């Protein structure tokens, strides 16, 4: 154990990764805030699709514009933002109902992922970037990427603060929201744009394969222990930030990559919340005992 979790190594390396920790914290904040909305709109699979197409976008940027040694993190970041935003908006156009949307995403996703693999295979430059896009490269986060992340976070959080209430209403209850004058058709693509931006940023840090652990898992854990929208949002922010920051610190141990650290912390939080949630479901929610029918209606896993 002392080989793997070496506290002294972590303490020595900590000063060098302040940038990564800040990036992780910002990303956790973004993921935690946007998570409840993803849950309410049933967009988990779209997030997965957008993150993999974000990888394809980054790979395309690397291949088409990254000739020679000029390939920078900024270029890949820009490519992945474009890929992710296009994917997110495309998925948004596929209809509100998850049933209609998911099969279309399932069709587009492997094609986009295949394109990304092809672009990377054709890219003649350094191969270090190849896996970075898939499984994250936060330790290598540079000043430019950090500022880009800050800018995106300000835009996304600022926009969400303005549209939060009607967006949540429209996500939970689209028909009634439309009847009450909420511009449902304007909010849907706007949210997909914000989601695409967030996903692209997360891809930079934890990689395309593991975005779900910062955008989906924290909220999934939070809804196990409370049904209050405000508490779910606060908890999911706390869980996501904790997973990102603690995951990065753990990864300073030699030979431990970032992604599994972040995803493991995130997953453990989920397990604990599930346990608490099942104890609570047995006692009943609120003042009312949950009927056995309601419990069996819950999806397994």
């Amino acid at each position, binding site marked *: 154990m002392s080989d793997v979790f070496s506290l002294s190594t972590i303490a020595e390396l900590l000063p060098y990764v302040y940038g990564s920790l800040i990036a992780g914290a910002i990303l956790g904040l973004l993921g935690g805030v946007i998570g409840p909305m993803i849950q309410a709109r*049933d967009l988990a699979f779209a997030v997965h699709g957008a993150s993999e197409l974000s990888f394809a976008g980054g790979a395309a940027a690397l291949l088409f514009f990254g000739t020679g040694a000029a390939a920078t993190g900024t270029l890949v970041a820009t490519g992945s933002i474009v890929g992710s935003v296009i994917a997110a908006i495309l998925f948004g156009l596929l209809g509100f109902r998850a049933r209609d949307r998911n099969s279309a995403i399932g069709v587009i996703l492997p094609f986009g992922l295949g394109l990304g693999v092809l672009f990377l295979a054709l890219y003649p430059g350094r191969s270090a970037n190849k896996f970075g896009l898939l499984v994250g490269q936060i330790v290598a986060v540079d000043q430019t990427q950090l500022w880009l992340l800050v800018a995106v976070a300000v835009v996304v959080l600022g926009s969400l603060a303005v549209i939060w209430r009607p967006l949540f209403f429209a996500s*939970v209850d689209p028909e009634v929201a439309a009847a009450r004058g909420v511009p449902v058709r304007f909010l849907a693509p706007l949210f997909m744009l914000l989601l695409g931006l967030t996903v692209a940023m997360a891809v930079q840090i934890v990689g395309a394969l593991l975005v779900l652990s910062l955008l989906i898992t924290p909220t999934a854990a939070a809804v196990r222990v409370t049904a209050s929208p405000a508490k779910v949002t606060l908890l999911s922010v706390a869980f996501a930030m904790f997973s990102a920051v603690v995951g990065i610190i753990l990864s300073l141990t030699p030979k431990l990559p970032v992604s599994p650290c972040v995803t493991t912390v995130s997953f453990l939080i989920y397990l604990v919340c599930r346990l608490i949630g099942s104890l609570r479901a047995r006692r009943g*929610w609120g*003042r009312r005992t949950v009927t056995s029918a309601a419990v069996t209606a819950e999806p397994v896993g």
Partner: protein
Amino acid sequence: MTTRLAPGTAGPASGRREAIMTPVPAAGATTPAVRLRDAELAFGPRVLWSGLDLDIAPGEFVAVLGPNGAGKTSMLKMLLGQLPLTAGTVQIAGRQASRGSSAIGYVPQQRSFDPGLPVRARDLVGFGIDGHRWGLPWPGRDRRQRIDAALAAVGAGGYADSPVGMLSGGEQQRLRIAQALITDPAVLLCDEPLLSLDLAHQQAVSNLIDRRRREAHTAVVFVTHEINPILSMVDRVLYLVGGEFRIGPPDEVMTSAVLSELYGTPIDVLRAGDRIVVLGTDHHVHHGDHDDIEVL
């Protein structure tokens, strides 16, 4: 208040027009909750209905009936300001119908929520207060008291903090009604609110609506394919069929003669106790417990 029939559709109901005009429970009301004048709704060359004049008084309960595609849902969308009339005017509580008007409460069909959705009963009702406003939700004592009162009024206080996904269809529809009524609208629009509820819940939910319109003089426009659960409450029926319509009390519209003429084919309307059974419309059958009756 006048009720005019569509041109060329003068049927048996029109002879008793005066009787049709005034089944108004609210006394001394001046501005009608809903006023339609020569209203027409068409999609391209297809006219759903035209020449529709209708005044709905505060507290009046109007059921909108008709087969699928006759324009029942479009009628609701028009009243909600989501679908503009192609001719004529529509007013809600004296003002032109507009999108998001607070003079309208809307109760949709029951649909299931995900059990993991982070929305409690009180949150769903709270959407009725400020869900459409920009910004972040902010808790307050006033807001909380209003929600508690609205929940209590529909008998939902016992599950105020339960996730909506864990409530039964009947409980969810009570919340919908609380949500729709929390702004004290002039009109309550209901789109098949009893669909997929069992008989006991159908009764409980329709009783809530009926009590509200008697106590607070909220007009009710109730779109349904099945009049029996609300038959005792309905003041007037607006029956839409393929561009034609009739307006009047159930006893005058729900007759073999009127419906036969509306559908242009022989229709039998039977009274079975306090129920109405309509025979002869293939896509549109009013039945209670009479599934065994052979229907053309």
